[in-house]
Every structure is written in structure tokens, then in C-alpha cells.
């Protein structure tokens, strides 16, 4: 139990997908202008990331490895991710049109979110079990959500600041992200993996 908790926390804080692993930066930079949208993106990603972590594990261990078809890994992973996203979208639309209205627009974006494929590949690299994979996915997603929320809060405030013209817009967002990542270095060395 403790081990799993540490795994979750470790992936969320210490090896944060965005700030340490450098995955999922496009949505991190693109969809963090407003807190509400950041939250939506975070939630949608959490859902998809956890699901795909499990699904790719199954595909890897039930299909690719037994058939010795590692060269199809990227392709199948991507297809699986796209399918999961598609499925999620349809499921949400069916279950709750309201939720679909708020989260739906983020779903297509997630297909091209490196964090999803990256996490799947990291799971493989670290030889995680199915449960570990699911936790790893959830942890990554939590880390993603946490950081994108913090970042959106900061950006909302910076949007009201008197930023010099040369730095306005993307540069200040990048610098803020850098400083946030500097702050997250404080978690480094915590005894979690």
C-alpha cells in the first residue's frame, strides 16, 4: 500500500511529467490561460492517461510481446490512444452532454499530447505491472493536473501584470514555467521513485 502511495506521489511530484520529464508541454503552454480550461484539460487528461496506461499495458503484454512484434509498438499504441480518446468522447457525450460540452473540446487535443504516449512508453521502460502502470498513469495525470492548475493561476495573475512588451505572451509564460520547475526541484531526492 505504502509502496503504491509513494509511486503515485513520486510520479506526481518528484518526476513530474511536465516539469521534470518534459512531456505534454504543448497543452501545458497552450491551455493554461484560464483556470477553468486548465482544470478541464487536467481532468480530461487524467481520465485518458489512466485508461491508456492500462490499455497499452494490455496491448503490450497480450499482443505485441507474445507475437514478437515490437516494431508495431508505436503504431499500435497510437491507435489505442486514439481509440480510447474517441471512446471517452463518445461515452461522455452519451452519459453527460453537459460534461461533454465542457471537456469535449480538449479530447482531440489529448491524442497529440506527448504525456499520454510518453507515459505508456515509460511504463514499458520501467517494466511496470498492470497495477503499477495504472498508478503510474494516474500519478502522471495528477502531476499534470496539479502543475497545469498552478501554472494557470500564475498566468491569470501575470496576464494582469505590467509585463514588458518583449516578454509579453509566450516568453513570460515560458519563464514562469521555468521558475515553477525550479521550485519543483525542491521535491527532488524524496525517497520515492
Amino acid at each position: 500500500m505504502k509502496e503504491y502511495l509513494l509511486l503515485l506521489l513520486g510520479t506526481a511530484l518528484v518526476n513530474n511529467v511536465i516539469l521534470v520529464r518534459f512531456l505534454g508541454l504543448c497543452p501545458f503552454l497552450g491551455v493554461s490561460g484560464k483556470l477553468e480550461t486548465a482544470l478541464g484539460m487536467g481532468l480530461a487528461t487524467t481520465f485518458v492517461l489512466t485508461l491508456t496506461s492500462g490499455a497499452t499495458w494490455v496491448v503490450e503484454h497480450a499482443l505485441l510481446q507474445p507475437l514478437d512484434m515490437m516494431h508495431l509498438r508505436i503504431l499500435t499504441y497510437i491507435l489505442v490512444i486514439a481509440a480510447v480518446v474517441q471512446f471517452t468522447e463518445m461515452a461522455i457525450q452519451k452519459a453527460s452532454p453537459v460534461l461533454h460540452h465542457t471537456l469535449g473540446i480538449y479530447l482531440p487535443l489529448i491524442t497529440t499530447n506527448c504525456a499520454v504516449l510518453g507515459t505508456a512508453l515509460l511504463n514499458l521502460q520501467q517494466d511496470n505491472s498492470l497495477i503499477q502502470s495504472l498508478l503510474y498513469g494516474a500519478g502522471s495525470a495528477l502531476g499534470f493536473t496539479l502543475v497545469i492548475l498552478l501554472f494557470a493561476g500564475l498566468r491569470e495573475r501575470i496576464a494582469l501584470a505590467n509585463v514588458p512588451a518583449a516578454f509579453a505572451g509566450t516568453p513570460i509564460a515560458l519563464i514562469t514555467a521555468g521558475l515553477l520547475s525550479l521550485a519543483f526541484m525542491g521535491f527532488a531526492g524524496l525517497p520515492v521513485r
Partner: protein
Amino acid sequence: MTTWTPNRSPVAAPHVHGRANVPQVMRTVLLALLPATATGVWLFGWPALNTVLLAIAGCVAAEAAALAIGRRPVGHTLADGSAVVTGLILALCLPPWAPWWLALLGGVFAIVVGKQVFGGLGQNVLNPAMLARVALLVSFPLEMTAWVAPQPLFSAASPGLVEGLAITFGGGPLPDAVSSATALAPLKLGGDFAAGEALLALALGTVPGSLGETSALALLAGGALLVARRIVPWQIPAALLGTLAVLAALFNQIDPAHYPGPLLHLLGGSAMMCAFFIATDPVGAPVTPLGRAIFGAGIGALIYVIRTWGGYPEGVAFAVLLMNAATPLIDRLVRPRRYGRLRTGAPLPLAPKEDGR
């Protein structure tokens, strides 16, 4: 009769103002930092004074340059004194015998990356001095963890003025004889925690450590001034020190051999400095009492976690930055209830007419 010509562009009320203004606030902070600075310089000798001056110089020069480049009024803005405060706080968090370029570089980083790219005073979100400290720590771990044992000014061991300049500007590693470990070292090394008489040393500051963080008493004196003058809201230091102490006491109860008690956590390291001068930087702190309490408690908890389990010997700077980053969220979630409304923002229901709902 003295005449009066009305101003044609109308100005709205209020037409009188309290006495507070930004330069005065910053002056008070500098005044409050004086005891700790003086103690630091006294304990660590002339090189410490060099460090202070260099950090401030770095900040002020960087601020002037940045303002000039951005075509903003240099003199007027410098006069707010915030660059000096940043410089001094940075210096007080550096090793006392830091080489010249460390202090200078830190000052420039704090102002340029931490403050001016955001638009200057009040526009930044993360504490500039702590950003600089962390950036230096990450980049120059050697220099940033070279502690010296205190050798009071004019004592035999203390370097003279010239020798001090040589230490600051000469470069080269510190002689092994003076390098030393801080009071928090046992946290990571598992040695003995400060014994009874050492706590007195921690209070007075006669222990190795950052320039201005060692003397809890001097910091407390300055902090008390700021709290009394209402420049610093009491909730932040109270929540911060309280959380830190409670966590320390809790784990100390569980396993005293691994986890030192609250006193070491409060007095050793820069918790005091942080509680009164760093966490309280208004720019990065929430604006409501509850928000400030959450903020302070968050910093306290993070300090404890990073100190106890993390990779770095001291968690103050990271903790402050992390909570700075959370400040917009806290401010967003913790808003005061508005008059005549429920917490949700909906109007109060027309309640039965009884006094004192």
C-alpha cells in the same frame, strides 16, 4: 485672501490617505532586518559585510539597468527601495563567505529573472530572492553549502578587512579548518541533534549557517517590529512556525532518534527568517487572513517534508516558491464572504427578523 484655482480633471474620493507608502514600508523592513544583519556581520566578520554589499549592489544595478532598458523612470522606481530589500534578504540567505560573483550573480538573477521580466515591483509572483537562492543552490552547490564557523568580528580568528576582501574576491576554496556543518546537518546525517546548551547558541546565532539566519533572537526582534507595525500579517508566521512545530513534535514523538524535536526545527536553519521576512513578502502571499494561514501552514509543512526526506539540506526556499505558485489558487478559492451574500455569492435569503443571525 489666498486664492484657489480648481483642478479641471476631477479626482474621486477619498481625498485623504493613510500615512503608509511603499518606500516607507520598505524602509521599515530594512530596519527590521538590521538586528539580523548586524549579528551576521558581527559573527562572520568582514567577508559577510562584503556579501551583503555585493548582493545589494547586484540587485540595485540590475534594477537600474532593467529600468533603463525598458525606458521606465529609473530614479523614481529605485526609490521604492524594494531592490535593496531583495538584495539584503538574498544576502542573508547566502553563505557568509560567499565569493563575490555568487552574491552579485544572485542579485542580478533575482532582479532580472525574478522581477523585472514580469514588469517590476509587485508584478512578479515568485519570491525573487528565493528564486536567486535556489538557482544558485542548484547551479553552485559547492559554494552554496560552504559554511564557516562563527568567529566574531575583531576576535583573533576573524579575518581582517584586507583578509576579508581576499576571501570574497580571491576565489579558491575555503580552508578546510573553517568549513563546518549547520545545525540541520544531523537531519540528513543522522548524528546527534542539538543538545540543551546548543539551543542557546541557536537562539543567539553562534552557529554556522547562512549569513543572517543563525540568530533566532535578532530575527524575532525584527519580526516583532513588522508584525506590530502591521506590515506583516501575523497569520503567516504563526501558521508557518506552528505547523512546523506540530509536525516536528509529532514525528519526534514517534521516533526521537530519527526526528528531532520542534525547537531544532524552529531555531536551526532559516525557519525564523522565512516566517517573518520571506514568506511574508506581500507580492507572493495571499491577501485574505484564511488564505495567509493556509499559505503559512503549507510552507511549514513543505519545509518539514523537504528537510526530513528531501534531497536538500534546507527546504525554506523551495517551500516558499511552491506556495508562492499556489497563491493565485488560494486567493481564488479563499475569498471573503461579501456583505449581504452567501459564500456562493448569491444574495442572503430574507431571514426572519431577529437580531444577530
